[in-house]
């Protein structure tokens, strides 16, 4: 091939659309968008071969901010939409994105089953431990003593541990990242996409408006002390006992990804034969 006519590689900005996000300045999701574009540039798939599926919430705004095919669906159902799309169009790279409320509250059931199904897609949750879009209610990952109008004094409820749940439900790749490190996050997203089966990445993404206390997260995150394991039991022990700020790939398993049932091809006449007497 003539160097002069070789196609230009995709730059990170090729994966960004012209739409200017309406997230609050200071929001972690800006970094996640940046990380996403860097990750896609590392993978070099044409933007049109990537689909970003989301639900409802601040984080779920992300599809239109990318230059990929996007789907902004209803609250909590993004994993179902992504599953249908991936099964119908397995050659696409399907990324499902959303927040902790969308994903673990209303979306909780679909989360369990997506992990269990182990469909080859990547689920990115921007976890800010609050419902931001609706002005600051506790989410399933909120600390029990966080005060809010809807739950004065705190919910008193133990927060969800999504990484453990993902592991227990069968996710093939479990990782945690921090939005403040867009390059590290990009690396993890690349690994997640490359890893077959259902990859779950929890990205700690501070909410500047409703959780200003999360500014401290930058000081609390630290690289995971040990290398990722492929032993679910070991991973479970580690994740259940970590401080919630352990950054890195925590589990990378070898379960075979979901495979749709196939059958020898038949034509309509063969199908209809069963009705003929």
């Amino acid at each position, binding site marked *: 091939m003539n160097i002069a006519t070789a196609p230009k590689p995709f730059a990170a900005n090729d994966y960004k659309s012209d739409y*200017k996000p*309406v997230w609050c*300045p*200071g929001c972690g999701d*800006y970094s996640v968008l940046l990380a996403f574009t860097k990750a896609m540039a590392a993978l070099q798939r044409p933007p049109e071969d990537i689909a970003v599926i989301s639900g*409802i919430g601040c984080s779920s705004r992300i599809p239109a901010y990318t230059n990929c095919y996007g789907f902004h669906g209803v609250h909590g159902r993004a994993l179902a939409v992504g599953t249908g799309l991936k099964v119908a169009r397995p050659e696409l790279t399907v990324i499902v994105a959303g927040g902790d409320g969308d994903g673990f509250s209303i979306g909780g059931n679909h989360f369990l089953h997506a992990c269990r199904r182990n469909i080859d897609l990547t689920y990115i949750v921007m976890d800010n431990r609050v419902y931001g879009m*609706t*002005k600051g209610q506790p989410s399933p990952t909120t600390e029990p003593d966080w005060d809010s109008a809807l739950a004065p004094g705190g919910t008193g409820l133990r927060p969800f541990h999504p990484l453990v749940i993902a592991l227990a439900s069968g996710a093939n790749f479990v990782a945690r990242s921090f939005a403040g490190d867009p*390059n590290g996050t990009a690396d993890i997203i690349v690994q997640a996409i490359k890893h077959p089966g259902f990859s779950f990445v929890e990205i700690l993404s501070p909410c500047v408006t409703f959780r200003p206390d999360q500014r401290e997260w*930058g000081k609390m995150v630290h690289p995971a002390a040990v290398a990722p394991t492929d032993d679910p039991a070991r991973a479970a022990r580690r994740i259940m006992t970590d401080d919630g700020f352990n950054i890195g790939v925590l589990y990378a398993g070898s379960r075979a990804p979901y495979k749709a049932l196939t059958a020898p091809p038949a034509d309509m006449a063969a199908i209809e034969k069963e009705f003929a007497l």
Partner: protein
Amino acid sequence: MSGDGKTHHTVQEFYALLYAMEHEAAERYDELANQMETHNNVEVAALFRELAAVERKHADKLKAHGQAVQAIRPRDMNVSRAFEMPETTPLDRVHYLMTPAHALALALENEEQAARCFAAFADAAPDAEVRALAAEMAKDERRHAAFIRERLAKLPAPPADWDQDLDPPRFSE
């Protein structure tokens, strides 16, 4: 030098690093300008736009010295801040009500950061040419910093209630 980054660079590689740094700084200022525009903070938007243009000029000068040789990992360059290049304003340091003083303070931090980083290279880089180049760059950055400091001094300090918004947050969905 840096955490787990590379420590031995050729001059070509160092130029590529420099370009990447300036380029990223410019992109970041532009991104922040966009954010400020979307949030109707016109003054700071203009300021970020200006800073972006300056960094872009620096980047263009460096680009002439050759293409970036490969994807540069910012860890190769980092000195104090954990995650991004020294001159890149972290995305979590902005606020929709920030004042020009805040913006310039960030820019100052960036320049000082870069200066420290280059000083470290000037001290310890194995390649003599790189050391020389780094020393020059450090001087440049210190000059930029002084410039910004001067500008900053002319601005009034932000009022105590600079981040007070009488309107409550809005729903949009």
